């Protein structure tokens, strides 16, 4: 095999063999993975272990298949969230695997519980961190950094090999790792950049058809990146109707559907793939043409231009070796905005440490204390003194953070002192340990703890709402404006104490507001629907999300409820709750436990009581329900002959179950779980049509927008789905958006008028703000609110 110039350069310099940590920055397709494979082969050849980190579960499985033969007979283990739980054992154990492939989250967990992994950690000679630019990811970055730091301290012999195509501060990263760096911009196939300019957003689809049609007509394949799932589906349908073999790809599809689409693309049954950022990294899908249909994305708060790193991650796929003389990168850009013209220069954004955020640093403090790797303030200072955040002079005030964590009862000072220094030891409290054990942000633990103490009579829906509001719940399910009415109707049927609170009180209780609160309400609705039907497809159809999302949400909530149950068991000092007599109503702890089982099984609160009977699991509970035995009382009163007639149930077991049910109903009742207090949540209607003659909906949306003058009497307005132009025509303002074409005073015009000091509008804004926090929540008001769902970098609106 002949080496590429960059591969040859790396090998000639001996970077892989040097033993130094190494950061390699090379474009997509230029052979980084091959270099990593050489390093791994050397390590395995001398009988040591290698560890490969990949950010994608799907890619981990793909790599294992690819390397099984390459590195035989070394056993290869894959350790991702798909295994370990739900009875699905790892194909190869940690102990036996010589090459371990895992996600950064799994490594984080291993290093926090390092004592359980001490049989293999010291034997790892090589840690490959693929897509090392993820150190800068707002959520995953801090955990990746913490994991790398702990691993290096536990195993000082490990060599780290970091790979990326897009690093703005490669030298700085190599310095942090005390290693060397190498960069090359050689690509097997050069990229030709083209800009497609449009004056109006409605011109884009036909322009896309022209571009993609030309590519396919010449025998090429095209990958189109868009900013939302809905757009991916709509555009792929549009292209298909024009005769192209086009499909869509996004995170709403389950794994098998995504793999099917990917395979179809590879094998030739599909020529055009319209995708969200799911195809940005990793998977091998070579194409001739990459189209960036949208050069902005929603970052959780607003629409922003795509970072250069992300543009290049996407564009890097253009050009198939042996088939295309060059790759084509096509960027759609409005005629009046040249900001995108800078992308081809490839000036990448620097990777910034996530530990610069205090809440994420707090999580890592707990991880260090819980794992026993640090016990005092000075040890923590030394540990984080080696962090990337410290290296970049972006460390928050650690002392201040520790004080805050003590005040919020996540850590405490022990009475024991270190024997030599006399320094007091720091320990995580039980709450702190729970946060560390469940890989949760401290904010989540505090949220749960406070809410459960103050709301002991929370309903099932309230518990779900609490969990859905936490920063650790995923996936976020955004609410479209069109869904507000149906959501309001669904919520009105739920039993909930929370929903009858005033909006400001509810936002304080849950720690979220605006669109994030709406998302939490929807997620709670989805989860509750799941407990009532146990059918992901049905729930997805009912709630306007995807079946895969229903199942992922269920998984996430089960994890959060486990943490909630642990937190609930922690007594507050001075709180000596007497044990509840069994005949009293079900406790919050019982509800959390029951709800967890309901989520596991997809059963409601009555049917779940059947599982209290020893030997009745979810499967049997479902079968009994089908036989009209829907709760514990019904089982206790069932006819033995009828019960024994059920296929697979012996008479002996039927009698055992009935006897157990009779005994149980003395102390428990299915009635106790029933909830009968619907919320008094109003629907999504607003309290008034217009405010000072201005449509409040458009006015609220206008507040989210940004603008800059282009010329005298002309503005560029952005922050919505598309950028637009607003100009003065005579004495009135006009806009090129559809809303304005239909005769409305659109939000873009309102934004310009506000910026120019329109007094009427300013008064209207004041009225809107005043009515916000009073009275029960109003969904439409929540939707108008500018703050949005927790700034998730997973881009919940647009996967």
């Amino acid at each position: 095999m002949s080496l590429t110039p960059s591969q040859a350069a790396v090998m000639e310099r001996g970077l892989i063999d040097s033993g130094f940590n190494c950061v390699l920055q090379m474009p997509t397709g230029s052979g980084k993975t091959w270099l990593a494979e050489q390093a791994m082969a050397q390590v395995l050849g001398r009988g040591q272990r290698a560890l490969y980190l990949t950010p994608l579960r799907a890619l981990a499985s793909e790599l294992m298949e690819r390397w099984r033969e390459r590195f035989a007979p070394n056993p290869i283990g894959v350790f991702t969230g798909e295994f370990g739980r739900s009875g699905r054992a790892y194909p190869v154990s940690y102990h036996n695997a010589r090459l371990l492939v895992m996600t950064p989250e799994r490594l984080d967990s291993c290093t926090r519980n390092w004592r359980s992994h001490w049989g293999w950690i010291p034997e790892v000679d090589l840690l490959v961190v693929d897509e090392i630019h993820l150190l800068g990811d707002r959520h995953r970055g801090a955990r990746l950094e913490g994991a790398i730091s702990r691993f290096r301290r536990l195993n000082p012999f490990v060599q780290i090999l970091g790979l990326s195509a897009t690093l703005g501060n490669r030298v700085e990263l190599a310095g942090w790792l005390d290693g060397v760096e190498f960069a090359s911009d050689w690509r097997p196939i050069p990229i030709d950049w083209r800009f497609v300019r449009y004056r109006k957003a409605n011109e884009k689809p036909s322009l896309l058809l022209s571009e993609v049609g030309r590519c396919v007509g010449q025998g090429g394949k095209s990958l189109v990146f868009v900013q939302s799932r809905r757009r991916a589906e709509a555009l792929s349908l549009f292209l298909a109707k024009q005769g192209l073999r086009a499909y869509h790809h996004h995170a709403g599809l389950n794994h098998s559907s995504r793999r099917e689409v990917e395979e179809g693309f590879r094998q030739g049954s599909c020529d055009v793939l319209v995708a969200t950022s799911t195809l940005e990294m990793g998977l091998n899908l070579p194409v001739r043409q990459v189209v960036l249909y949208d050069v902005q994305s929603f970052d959780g708060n607003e629409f922003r231009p795509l970072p250069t790193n992300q543009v290049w991650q996407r564009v890097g796929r253009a050009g198939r070796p042996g088939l295309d003389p060059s790759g084509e990168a096509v960027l759609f850009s409005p005629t009046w905005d040249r900001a995108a013209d800078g992308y081809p220069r490839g000036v990448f954004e620097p990777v910034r440490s996530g530990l610069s955020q205090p809440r994420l640093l707090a999580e890592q403090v707990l991880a260090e204390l819980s794992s026993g790797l640090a016990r005092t303030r000075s040890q923590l200072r030394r540990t984080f003194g080696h962090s990337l955040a410290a290296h970049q002079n972006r460390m928050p005030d650690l002392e201040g953070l520790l004080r805050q964590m003590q005040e919020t009862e996540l850590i405490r000072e022990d009475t024991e002192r270190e024997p030599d220094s006399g320094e007091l030891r720091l320990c995580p409290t039980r709450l702190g340990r729970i946060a560390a054990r469940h890989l949760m942000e401290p904010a989540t633990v505090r949220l749960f703890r406070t809410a459960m103490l103050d709301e002991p009579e929370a309903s099932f829906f309230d518990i779900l709402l609490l969990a859905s509001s936490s920063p650790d719940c995923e996936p976020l399910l955004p609410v479209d404006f069109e869904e507000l009415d149906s959501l309001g109707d669904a919520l009105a049927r739920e039993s909930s104490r929370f929903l009858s609170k005033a909006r400001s009180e509810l936002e304080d209780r849950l720690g979220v507001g605006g669109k994030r609160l709406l998302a939490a309400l929807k997620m709670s609705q989805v989860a509750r629907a799941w407990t009532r039907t146990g059918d992901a497809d049905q729930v997805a159809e009912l709630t306007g999300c995807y079946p895969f999302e229903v199942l992922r949400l269920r998984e996430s909530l089960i994890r959060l409820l486990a943490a909630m149950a642990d937190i609930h068991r922690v007594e507050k000092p001075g709180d000596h709750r007497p044990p509840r007599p069994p005949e009293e109503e079900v406790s919050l702890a019982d509800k959390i436990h029951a709800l967890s089982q309901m989520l596991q099984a997809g059963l409601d609160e009555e049917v779940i009581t059947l599982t209290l009977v020893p030997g009745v699991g979810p499967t049997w509970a479902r079968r009994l329900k089908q036989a009209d035995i829907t709760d514990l009382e019904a089982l206790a009163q069932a006819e033995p002959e009828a019960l024994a007639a059920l296929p697979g149930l012996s008479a002996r077991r039927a009698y055992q179950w009935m006897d157990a049910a009779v005994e149980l109903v003395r102390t428990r009742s299915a009635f106790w779980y029933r909830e009968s207090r619907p919320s008094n949540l109003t629907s999504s209607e607003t309290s008034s049509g217009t405010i000072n003659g201005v449509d409040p909906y458009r006015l609220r949306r206008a507040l989210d927008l940004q603008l800059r003058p282009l010329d005298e009497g002309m503005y560029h307005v952005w922050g919505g789905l598309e950028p637009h132009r607003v100009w003065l025509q005579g004495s009135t303002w006009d806009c090129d958006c559809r809303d304005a074409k239909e005769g409305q005073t659109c939000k873009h015009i309102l934004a310009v008028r506000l910026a120019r000091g329109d007094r009427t509008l300013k008064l209207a804004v004041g009225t809107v703000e005043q009515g916000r926090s009073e009275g029960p929540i109003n969904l439409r008001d929540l939707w108008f609110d500018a703050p949005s769902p927790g700034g998730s970098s997973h881009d919940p609106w647009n996967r």
Partner: protein
Amino acid sequence: MEPIVRALNTRGGKIRFPAYIPVTTFGEEYPLDDLVRPYLPRLAQAMMVSYHYARNRNLSDRPNLPLLVDSGGFSALFKDARIRKRNGLGCIERTLDGSHQLLSPLDALDLQERIADVAFTLDFPIPPGTKPAEAKVRQALTIANAHWALANRRRSDLLLYACVQAWDAASARACARAYAGCPFDGIAIGGLVPRARDLVGVLSIVDAVRAEIGDKALHVFGLGKPDVVAELFRHGVDSVDSSSYVRLAVDGRLWSNPGARITDPSATDRLHLALCNLAMATGQTLPLGASRWLFSTSILQRLEEGQTDDSR
């Protein structure tokens, strides 16, 4: 002409001389040993464990290195211990929590047969100040135990070292002479740790033994300080064992800079210190990439001078 390489071929692998053999323990008493142990194969050729820390322990996950197991004779120095003569052999009787425990040559050999690649016979240290009569009794029992072990060894691949206990060069020579012509695989000198400050005296004992045993492998128990070890090797000692590399690390110290100290070392700080100390003792090099994580003289110097950021 091929250079002569002295080595010991054990069931668990070859040990090239001179060799520093790190002492380790199994169990929970010394947590740092658990951290260091997996790294021993990177920095050492073999490892030593005492009878007391190997008995009733799970050694199934031990590193893949030749294992040397001593007899536990140092327990004769404990306050509750008494040396007894039974059937011409020496035993150690201890009273622990009201119960009597006996360590006999059979007990030691039994365990060594099961797990060791190299075994040391049951000996009785003779600390400075021991009365001459008592010293002679201890030496005689040490010699008797050694001969008994040789006669009763069952595993043909278990290498057996006879132990020398003495109070001066002359008595050391006499003890070594008692093993002359016997097919021991090596001779081990004990009881030098309390005499370590008198390096001249120690070396005179070593010279006396070496003169008697000819080419046999010679081991010294318990002396691990690098400069002392260097002298011992120069005087013909083939191997030493010591736990001081890790005891120093517990205390936050580095051999290469004895004056400096971390007053508040974390678990991984101690691990790194121990690895540095061990590398220095065994003459192995540490990976370049570990330089930030492991200590150097200059780093400790800065800590000693109280530089505020505590960063290395």
